C-alpha cells in the first residue's frame, strides 16, 4: 500500500466530508430546509450553529441541503458531459474524415459562444428545472471534454497496437473502449476533477443570477444571493456558502492531482 501524500489526504477528507453530507442531508440537518425557525439573521448560537438566514431559516440546515443540490447537479452534469464528450471525441478520432470535420466544426461553433451567455439565453426561454439545468450544463461542458478526448485519441489511434486491432478486424466499439479508452484515462480523470469544479461554480453562478436552482430549494449559489445584502450590515451569512464552494473546489483538485499521479505511474502507464 502506497502512503498517501498529505495534500491528497486533506483533499480526500474534505471531498468525502462534503459528499457524505450531501448523501445523508436529511439525517444530518437539524431543521427542515424551508421552515422558518427563528428571527432574521440571528447570530451563531448553540441552537443555530451558523445562525439564521435572511427570512429566519436555519442556515446550517440550508447549507447542508444546498450542498446536496449543488453537488448532485454538478456530479450528474459532469457525468453527462464526460460520457457524451469523450465518446463523441473518440468516435471522431477513430472514424476521422468528414465525420470528424463536421463534429469538430460544430463543437467550435458552440465553443465560440460564451458559455454563461448561452446558458442564460437557453434557461430564460426554457423552464428552469433541475434536469434542464443538468442538460444545459452537461451539453455546454461536453464540448471541452470532446476537444480533450479527441486530441488524446488522435495520438493513440495512430499507434501500432491500434493498427494491429484494425488488421485483426476489430469493430469500432472494441477499438474505442478496449484499445483507446484505457490509455486515455489518466488525462481524462484529471480533467474530470477540474470540470466538476467548473460545474459547481457554474451552477452557483446561475443560481446567484436567479436562473439556476429556484427558491425555496436551497443551493450554495442561491444562499449567497439570498444573504448578500447582509454583508453591508456586517452579517456573514453569505460567506459560509462561499467558503464551502472554495474548499470543495480546492479539495477536489487535490484528489484529482493525486489520482493523475497514481494512474500515470501504474503498470504500463503512458506518461
Amino acid at each position, binding site marked *: 500500500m502506497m502512503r498517501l501524500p498529505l495534500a491528497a489526504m486533506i483533499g480526500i477528507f474534505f471531498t468525502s466530508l462534503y459528499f457524505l453530507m450531501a448523501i445523508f442531508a436529511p439525517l444530518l440537518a437539524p431543521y427542515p430546509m424551508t421552515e422558518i425557525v427563528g428571527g432574521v439573521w440571528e447570530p451563531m448560537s448553540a441552537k443555530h450553529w451558523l445562525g439564521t438566514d435572511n427570512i429566519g431559516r436555519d442556515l446550517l440546515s440550508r447549507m447542508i441541503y444546498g450542498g446536496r443540490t449543488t453537488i448532485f447537479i454538478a456530479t450528474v452534469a459532469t457525468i453527462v458531459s464526460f460520457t457524451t464528450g469523450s465518446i463523441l471525441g473518440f468516435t471522431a478520432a477513430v472514424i476521422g474524415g468528414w465525420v470528424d470535420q463536421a463534429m469538430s466544426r460544430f463543437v467550435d461553433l458552440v465553443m465560440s459562444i460564451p458559455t454563461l451567455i448561452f446558458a442564460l439565453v437557453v434557461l430564460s426561454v426554457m423552464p428552469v428545472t433541475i434536469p434542464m439545468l443538468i442538460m444545459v450544463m452537461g451539453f455546454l461542458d461536453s464540448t471541452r471534454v470532446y476537444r480533450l478526448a479527441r486530441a488524446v485519441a488522435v495520438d493513440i489511434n495512430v*499507434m*501500432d*497496437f491500434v*493498427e*494491429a486491432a*484494425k*488488421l*485483426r*478486424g*476489430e469493430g469500432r466499439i472494441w477499438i474505442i473502449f*478496449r*484499445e483507446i479508452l*484505457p*490509455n486515455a484515462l489518466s488525462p481524462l480523470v484529471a480533467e474530470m476533477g477540474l470540470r466538476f469544479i467548473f460545474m459547481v461554480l457554474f451552477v452557483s453562478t446561475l443560481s446567484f443570477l436567479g436562473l439556476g436552482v429556484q427558491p425555496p430549494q436551497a443551493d450554495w449559489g442561491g444562499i449567497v444571493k439570498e444573504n448578500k445584502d447582509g454583508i453591508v450590515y456586517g452579517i456573514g451569512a453569505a460567506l459560509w456558502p462561499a467558503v464551502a464552494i472554495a474548499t470543495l473546489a480546492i479539495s477536489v483538485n487535490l484528489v484529482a492531482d493525486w489520482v493523475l499521479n497514481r494512474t500515470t*505511474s*501504474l*503498470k*504500463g*502507464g*503512458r506518461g
Partner: protein
Amino acid sequence: MSDQLLKVRDLKIGATVYPPGEKPHDIQIVHGVSFDLAPGKVLGLIGESGAGKSTIGLSAMAYGRGGVEITGGEVWVNGRDILQESVKGLRALRGTEVTYVSQSAAASFNPAKKIMDQVTEASVSQGKFSRADAEAKAVELFAKLGLPDPENIGSRYPHQVSGGQLQRCMTALALCPEPDLVVFDEPTTALDVTTQIDVLMAIKEAIRDTGVAALYITHDLAVVAQVSDDIMVLKMGEMVEYGSVDQIINAPQEDYTKALVSVRSIDHEEKTPTDNPMLKVENITARYKGTNFDVLNDVNVELHPGQTLAIVGESGSGKSTLARVITGLLPPRDGRIEFSDRTLSPDLAGRTRDDLRELQMIYQMADVAMNPRQTVGTIIGRPLEFYFGLRGEEKRKRIKELLDEIEMGDGFIDRYPAELSGGQKQRVCIARALAAQPKLIICDEVTSALDPLVADGILKLLLDLQKVENVAYLFITHDLATVRAIADSIAVMYQGRVVRYGSKSEVLSPPFDDYTDLLLSSVPEMKLGWLEEVIANRKMESAGN
C-alpha cells in the same frame, strides 16, 4: 606526466531508477571499469543496450545524463583528474578539449541556426580561435570530410543537407576546436546502410589526418572493427574483454565476445519454389492520399507456402508501403493481390474474417505494437477469442501452449508489456500473430530495434516456427545479414520499384546491377580492412550521401 591522454581508473557510475509500482532506488550501472587511451589512438566501446557504453563515453567529459551520477573512481584527461574539476574547469574542457558526436545529428543541431555558426561556436566562445580562423578551419574540415561545396555548405541550415551530410557536419563540429579526444556515440547507427560506410570512411580519415584520439561507441562489432585500434567489450557495466581489433575479431577469448563475433551466422537452407504460390502481388502501383507520386511502381512478387520472401531496400524504397498495400491499409491505385487462390479486396473493409486471420503482421517497435494496458494473456488471447471463439480454461490452455512455443514460460501470462525486455516483447507479438493460425506473417523490420544477440534469437525462433507451423514470411528489412540468414527468395527495392528479384542464391550471386552491388557491399563485414576494400570497388554513390 604520463604518456596517456585518457586514464580511467575504477570508474563507478550509479543511477536512480523509477520502476513502475515500486519505490525509486539507486542502482549501479558501471562497476569499476579501468582503461587507458594514448594520444591519436581509437578505442572502440562495444556492447548491447544497457551495457553502459554511452555512460562511460560521457564520463570522459565528466558528464552524467539526467539521473546518472559518477559515484567513484578517477578520470584523468591530460594529466588532471576531471572528476575533481570545478564547473568552470569542466566548461573549458567540454566542447574544446574533449568533444562529442551523438547518434542523431538531426536532433543535435539547432534547426534555427546555420551550420557554420554551430560548428564554430565552441572554438569562438572558448576563445580558442578567432571567428575567421575557426571558419577557415571548418571549411578545411568540410573538405576533408568529403562534403560537397565546402566553401558554402556552412551557410545552409541543418534541414538543407541530407542525414549523412549532417552527421559529417557534426564530426566537423567536434573536430573544429582541435580537441585531444572525441567521443563518437553510435555516429552511423541512425543512417541507411549505404550511407553508413561513406560516413564511416570520412570519420576514419578525419581521425587519421587530425591525429585526434577517439572513443568509438557502437553496438555493431563489424563497424567498430573498421575504425578502432583497440576494442573494449562491455556487458552490464563490466568489462568483458579488452584487446587489439585483430585479437578480438580473430581470436576472441571470452564466450560473450565469441557470441558477438559469430552473430548473424545462422545457417539456412534455401527452399525451392512450389508450383502454386500462396501470395501473388501483381502490378501493384500505389501512392499516399494527397501526394502526386507513386511510392510503389508496378511491383510484382510471389511467395510460396512455408517460405520466406525478403523485401530489401533502404528507407524510402517503398518496402513498408508494400506491406500496407498487402494488409489492405493502403488500397493500391492499380494491380491486384492474390492470396490462397482468391483475390483480396483492395481495402481492409472489404476483406473477410478469414482473409484477415490468415494474414498477420509483426511490427518493428514491439513496445507500441502492444496495448500497454493489456496483459500478455489478453494480448495473445484476443485473437483466439476473436477468430476461434475460445473462452475460459480452453483459451488459457492455448495461451500457455503459445507461450511455450515462443520459449517463454506461462509465468508471463499476467504481466504487462512494460515488465518485459525488448526481446520478450517481440516474442509476445510473434505469439499474437501465431494465435490466429495464419498462412502468412508480414514481418516489418522485426529485428532492427533489437540488440544483435537478441535479434539472433528472434530470427532462430521465426525459422523454427516456420518449420513447425509451415507459415510463410514476408520479411521487410534493410539488413542484408538478416536476409542471408532467413530468406528463400529476395526482392531488392529501390525508389518504389523491384530492381532485382529471384531466389536467394540468384539474387546474391554476380553479376549484380549497380544498386544491388552498392547494397550488398555496404553491409559491414567482420574483417579488418573491409571498409577500404569496399570504397575502392564501388560502382555507384549512395543516394543519401
